[in-house]
């Protein structure tokens, strides 16, 4: 078989590579459209971000080429080692990181800076894939499940320690992978229920919620009264569920808001659901400082919505984005790059971009499912999940569906670490996929 094998470059999945290049190209164009001025004499200006991004793209392609030339067994064999090194770097960053806007998530050498949290995703994906693909792992046992969860969440905890909560949230995407690998359905349902409970807790006033939950529980009890009469478990479940909800909404959430979350995080969460921060959670009042309430994240979301909303159906046209071009949208080259698309290319452009992303993710899922090797399959799911989380949360936060947490839009956002780490993810996948006839453990 190996004799009839086509050359490596013919075995690479063209669809993924094409989508990858298209998305990066869109990203560079978007950064260009934001930065270009009519007064610019030349397109090639090295101090502009789009040129830097172009150079990063060059590096990415070079690194991708090297990855493609590497033996595919290499990745599974170094997975744990890489993960260990990654954890070490993350721990080091907590102490030796550069302070950027209050978070210590960057490592700096001279003018070069990178965010280990971005790169750690790769190692975590590899380590998780490696662990779940081990023949001795039985994902049905609680022990192995806990180990898998630990692999996914240890980096997250370290990143939270670096005060970069947004990036840490991404690591929860690995639950999607674990779900695919056999985590019970109930966990998924439970997860959604908890999210729903959190939202209602924030949206509905506490006493009203207490009444609502109780009424809800009583109604379920009435509906299931026959089952309740006969057996003990449903009874316990109902009372336990009710108690959990009450404790969660009445005690846990207020506690977390008062003592765990930071001021800007509370503001972001409330700005997302479109409400004012209640006085009891208002840290400025608690601290007794006479600081005027400035809700900067609300401003950011408003500016972002203005930019996207003003794009209309067809958009304002290339280079005509008045909001993005003139720096009204904050962080518009990085976290809010989607605004540039939304403003200049309107609904048509935005929807097309969403379709491109979904195509890429579905293609990766498809690639995962066609593997004989469990490592590659799990790794592919990791890549798809990471992309999905970044994509969904980033776009949602620009249009006010999710709180503003600083995570990038894959391939589009300006920034070396982000582009490089996503490129590595994709190229490792391409390399592994090209050897799908082999069984890699």
């Amino acid at each position, binding site marked *: 078989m190996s004799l009839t094998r086509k050359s490596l470059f013919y075995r690479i999945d063209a669809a993924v590579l094409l989508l990858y290049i298209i998305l990066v190209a869109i990203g560079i164009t978007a950064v260009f459209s934001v930065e270009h001025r009519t007064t610019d004499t030349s397109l090639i200006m090295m101090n502009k971000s789009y040129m830097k991004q172009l150079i990063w793209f060059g590096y990415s392609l070079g690194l991708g080429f090297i990855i493609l030339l590497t033996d595919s067994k290499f990745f599974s064999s170094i997975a744990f080692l890489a993960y260990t090194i990654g954890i070490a770097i993350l721990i080091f960053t907590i102490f030796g990181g550069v302070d950027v806007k209050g978070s210590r998530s960057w490592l700096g050498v001279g003018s070069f800076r990178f965010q280990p949290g971005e790169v750690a995703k790769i190692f975590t994906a590899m380590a998780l894939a490696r662990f779940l693909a081990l023949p001795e792992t039985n994902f049905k046992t609680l022990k192995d499940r806990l180990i898998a969860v630990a692999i996914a969440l240890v980096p997250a905890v370290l990143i939270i320690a670096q005060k970069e909560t947004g990036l840490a949230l991404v690591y929860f995407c690995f639950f999607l992978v674990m779900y695919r690998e056999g985590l019970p359905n109930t966990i998924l349902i439970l997860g959604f229920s908890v999210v729903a409970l959190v939202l209602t807790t924030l949206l509905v006033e506490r006493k009203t919620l207490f009444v609502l939950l109780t009424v809800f529980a009583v109604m379920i009890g009435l509906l299931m009264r026959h089952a309740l009469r006969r057996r003990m478990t449903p009874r316990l479940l109902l009372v336990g569920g009710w108690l959990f909800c009450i404790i969660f909404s009445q005690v846990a959430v207020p506690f977390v808001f008062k003592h765990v979350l930071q001021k800007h995080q509370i503001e972001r969460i409330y700005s997302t659901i479109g409400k004012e921060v209640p006085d009891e959670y208002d840290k400025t009042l608690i601290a007794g400082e006479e600081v005027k309430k400035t809700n900067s994240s609300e401003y950011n979301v408003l500016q972002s919505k203005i930019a996207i909303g003003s794009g209309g159906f067809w958009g304002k046209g290339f280079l005509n984005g008045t909001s993005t071009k003139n720096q009204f949208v904050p962080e518009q080259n990085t976290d809010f790059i989607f605004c540039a698309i939304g403003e200049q290319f309107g*609904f048509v452009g935005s929807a097309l971009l969403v379709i491109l992303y979904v195509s890429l993710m*579905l293609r990766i899922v498809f690639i995962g499912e066609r593997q004989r090797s469990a490592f590659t399959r799990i790794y592919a799911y990791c890549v798809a999940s990471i992309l999905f989380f970044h994509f969904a949360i980033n776009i949602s936060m620009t249009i006010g569906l999710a709180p503003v947490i600083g995570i990038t839009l894959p391939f589009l956002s300006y920034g070396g670490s982000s582009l490089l780490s996503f490129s590595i993810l994709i190229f490792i996948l391409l390399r592994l996929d090209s050897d799908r006839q082999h069984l890699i453990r």
Partner: protein
Amino acid sequence: MPVAANPRQYIISFIFIGIAAIIVLRLFFLQNFEAKYKILANDIAIYKKVVYPPRGVIFDRKGKVMLSNTAIYDLMVTPSNVPKTFDTTQFCEMLDIPRSTYIAILTRAVVRNSSVRQSPFMEQLSPAQTARFQENAYMFPGFELVERNIREYHSKAAGIVLGYIGEVSQDMLKKPRYLSYRQGDYTGLSGLELQYEEALRGQRGVHYLERDKFNRPRDPYRGGVLDSQEISGRQLDLYLDAELQEYAERLMANKIGSVVAIDPQTGGVLCMVSSPSYDPNLLRGRERAKNYAKLYRQATRPLFNRGIQATYQPGSTIKPMTGLVALATGVISPSFGLGCRGSYGLCRRSIACEHKDAGHAANFRLALAHSCNSYFCHIFRMTIDYRNYKSVREGLQVWSDYYKNFAIGRQTGVDLPFEGRGLLPDSAYYSDRYKFSWNSCTVVFVGMGQGELALTPLQMANSMCIIANKGYYYTPHFVKAIGKNENDSALRKYKEKHNVLNISDSTFSVVQRAMQDVVESGTAMGARIEGVEVCAKTGTAENKAIVNGEVIKMQNHSMFVAFAPRQNPRIAIAVAIENAGFGATWAAPIASLVMEKYLKDSVTVKRKEVEDKMLNANLINEYVYTIDSAIRLHDLMVYNARVEKKRYADSTRRANAEVMLARWMEGKLKKARTIK
């Protein structure tokens, strides 16, 4: 391991697609149904820049520029663009300012206007500073020269006529006339600048620019398709002769008074001097308010346009008109004579006449040439007591109507704002004043230009135009053409010929001849111009000032009216010099020099002596200042008294209130005690 067709891959794919669908749905509504974002985006990102066109330029009759615009340079700074390595020492040396000033200005700019926005660093750079900066501009990033237009007066003359501009005030903005103005706009505040504001102002342009977060304007919005272009202000061509104006102002230096010269054939004002004059360049730019206050406080009131606002009793200069009316109504014939012996005694009190010799008032011409008071008082009485009229009231009304027809006692309609009316008594006026018990003797002084009659110099000059033209005049005006168009609608009223009440040509001829005699053999021989038939009348007007409620008789005003030549008159002039003495001594030579300058373009060498005398004479009396300060002192005392009175009243009221309160409290206490 489950390899074959795991159903969970579909669930995961479904989650991907589902979330993407929610995002697309949200985008759909956000981008298609929420119009407010479009409005908000335009609001924040589009900057409306108003571009002011240059104001219209004003030219004199010979095409010489009198008032134009000049570019001045303000040095602007954007503090955030000033690099850390900035060479402050060199910069300060270049502008010749100390380092501390540099730091102070920069700090203030950052505090007031943030460091990313442009703020003024130094306004109105001197030419030397501008040149030095332009040479070295590349060395000073963050600094920029910004051009700005201000008005430039090309000579010190005619300031009172041209007027000045200034920012519109809050009060003005409330008026309908200033609806199209905005705060910070400039508008004419006096003179021609005010009168022709609409033409001079032009139309401002609006340019739409994109701006960024820091409000810095960037590129034109949508390539500038929405912009409206600014339209420059229209130029004004004046009848005014800049050279003549300057000459007349020099002659009037150190005198208080006015010279007004009109071209009788067009009504165009050739010069209008209000002395003392001021340098109009003082009233522009940043220094305007300060200098205005300074000029306003001066005792000689340079901001008061004596040409149209001051009213003088005309004295003998009114006698041609008195005669004209008497002749026109047929009360007298030119040969009517009066045997004056130095006084006029028919009205119980005696009115003095300068001349005592018999026959100086043997006929109209002689009487006017010698300016016989008796004669003109008498013919004035005869006019209003004429038997054709039922009473003196009707007679005076006829006389008054004639004068009104000559544009006396009302605004002439000259194209300058704030024109004075003068004073012309009519029957109603006297009936009101004397409770109907008056006769021609009561008002006899009006015949010789004293009493209740008062004219502005412009009215005097205009009445000369009527005599010169033999019966008509054009409303005096300054502007010949607006934007090179002589038939502009704003000028239509000045094209209209005003014919005075039916007075025959021969009547005018008689008056003209008589006025010519004034120059050739009468009181105004000093006004003769070689080779020109000058018709004139001198005047020496008695006047009184009211200082702090006391009437004080002051030195006479020196008055003079004239026109020349007699045939095809080209200039009519009125000169008034306050408290200078005889009309023949001061006003007459000045008027004649101005006329000669205009008619012959230069003054003959023979008259240099007179010219020098006029140029160097200082006729401002010391008591002008004394009176002024006395008036000011009086005003201050009145003001202080009022303030004191108010304070007293206030304190009394307070004291009363306190007493009332104390009483009330006492009552309460008593009650409390009794309860105990």
